[in-house]
Structures are given as C-alpha cells and as structure tokens.
C-alpha cells in the first residue's frame, strides 16, 4: 500500500490536471477566438469604435487568466500574443484597415494553434 498509494495519487493528479488544463485552454481560447471574430466583423464594416471596445473585452479575457497561461504556456508565446494585441490596439486607433485585419487574423491563428497543440491527437504525440 505504501507504494500503491503514491502511484494512485500521482496518476489521479496527472489525469485531473490534464483534463482541467485541457478544458481551461479549450474554453478560454474559444472565448477569445469568438471575441476576435467580432472584432474582425466590426473591422470589415469599418466600425472602429466598436472594434476597439470589442478588442478591450478580448484583452480583459486574456489578462484575467494571465497566471494560468504563465503556468501552461511557453512564455515566449505569451509575449508574442501580448505584442500582437498591443499592435492591433494601435492599428485600430490609427484606423489602419489592412494592418488591423492582418493582425487580428494572426491572433486568431495563434489562439487556434494553442488549442490545437494540446489536443490529444496522433500528430501532437509524434
């Protein structure tokens, strides 16, 4: 039992941690992705003020779970997203359509790839 108990505890911790982190990444990336879709929609209609407000909401969602991202994600990836968000914010302020639409697409792809990288697939295992 002395050996079996730590095995069971560690296995449960690993399984529980894997499930929780997967759920967290799935819901958060999906939520921010949806918010970026709305930003993209507003940009397409040249609604700069609405795009700015929607981006602020997306930034708040991203920053709210900052600590968890630091634990789960490569820190360079976090910095890249921070930079991209800041660039998008400035591009919207400057009402630069082509740069804004390019940056929002990059951000969407980044969040999508975060979720894709944690999915249990043969591709990710190898």
């Amino acid at each position, binding site marked *: 039992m002395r*050996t*079996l108990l*730590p*095995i069971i505890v*560690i*296995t449960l*911790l*690993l399984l529980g*941690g894997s499930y929780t982190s997967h759920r967290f990444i799935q819901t958060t990336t999906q939520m921010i992705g949806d918010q970026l879709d709305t930003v993209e929609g507003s940009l397409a209609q040249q609604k700069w003020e609405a795009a700015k407000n929607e981006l602020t909401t997306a930034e708040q969602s991203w920053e709210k779970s900052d600590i968890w991202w*630091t*634990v*789960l*994600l*490569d*820190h*360079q990836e976090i910095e890249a997203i921070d930079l991209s968000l800041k660039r998008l914010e400035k591009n919207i302020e400057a009402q630069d359509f082509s740069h804004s639409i390019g940056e929002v697409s990059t951000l969407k792809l980044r969040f999508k790839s975060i979720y894709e990288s944690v999915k249990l697939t043969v591709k990710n295992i190898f």
Partner: protein
Amino acid sequence: MIVVVLRTLILYALVIVALRMMGKREIGQLQPFELVVILMISDLAVVPSENVGIPLLSGIIPILVLLSASMTLAWISLKSERARDIICGKPSILIERGKILEDELKKNCYNLTDLLEELRLKNVPNIADVEYAILENNGQVSVIPKSQKRPAIPEDFQITPPFEGLPLALILDGKLNQRNLDKSNKDLDWLRSELQKQTILRIEDVLLASIDSSGKLFAQAKLRGSKNNHR
C-alpha cells in the same frame, strides 16, 4: 536571476523527493528501467531550471510521470516473478562449476577481459579458483570461489564466536545521543565516569564516543581550543 534560483531549487527538491520515493535501491544498484528514469529525470530538471521561458510545469509533469511509471514497474515486479523477469531480466551464469560459459558471455556482450577484471576486483585473481560467477541484473558480478579456495570461517574450526552487535555512537561532536545511550542500557553517570577515566571532564569536550556490543567505550577528546564543528 532569483527566478532561476527558485526554479532550480523547486526542481532540485522534486528530484530528491522522487528519488527518495523510488527507494534506496535506486541510488546503489540500478535496474535497467531505474537507470533510464535517473538519466531522464536529471535531464528534465535541467532544461526548465536554466530556461525561464519554459513553464516550470513542463519539467514537473514529466518527472511525476516517470516517478509514477517507475513506481508502477517496481510494484508490478514485486508482485509477479514473471513480470520481474521481463522488466529486470534474469541473472546470467558466466562461470558454472569452474567452466566459462562462452554463450552467456556472448549473449551479454561480456568479454574475457571484463570478466577477469571483475574477478580481480572481487579478490579472486585466479580464474581457476572460481566455482561460479554470476552477472547480476544491476551489472555487478557475484563470484563464488571453490570451497577449498574460500576464506576459512569460524564454523570450519567449530568455534562459536560471541555475538557482535552494532557499535552505537553516544556522543558526536560534543552532543549526547540520548536514544543510543538508552539503547546501550547505560546511563549518564556511567558515561561520565568512563569519560573521566580517559581524563575527559565534560561531554562537550568529546569529539566522538561510541560503545560496542561488549560494553567497551571508545572516546576521543576534541583538540584543545578547537572551535570548528566537525559534523
């Protein structure tokens, strides 16, 4: 920089806990699956400790996975002999009844030079004196000499020597170990009187005092004026 220090300390503590949980065998006599764990754990701990860009969890999770995998294999091999043979392998007899088994040497990629070296290390320089040599799972060779070549033991002379227990350290660097004193069935007065016989007046002045199973006390005083801690 403090982040690197803390990350390294956390991983260091985790590796120590992992090795302690794997048991004492891990440090001395490694089975193949245990050796792999040691090699991998040390490497896994290094990467996140020197690169702050990698989440600490990326080092901790694989260590925990290896720990539980290693403990599971150890548990399975403890419960099943067949599993033990598969996981740890079987010892190979290299010399049987004084005859070298060439096939076993080849199977284990063990050449004659290695064999002779191991025999010399086991204080049996002459291969003609060996009855059995067994290559154990941890890579060590156990040597059983021929009965006429092995060292004589008291039983050969029909002598029954008195019981020899473990010596107990009673004082280490001026500090009394009360538990060992109780175990030796002696008291403080006896200890003080024995020390006085050796012209040591205070327990604090003793560098080392130990008692053997026959009740004989060994004591050595600290050097006069020595202030450094010896422990």
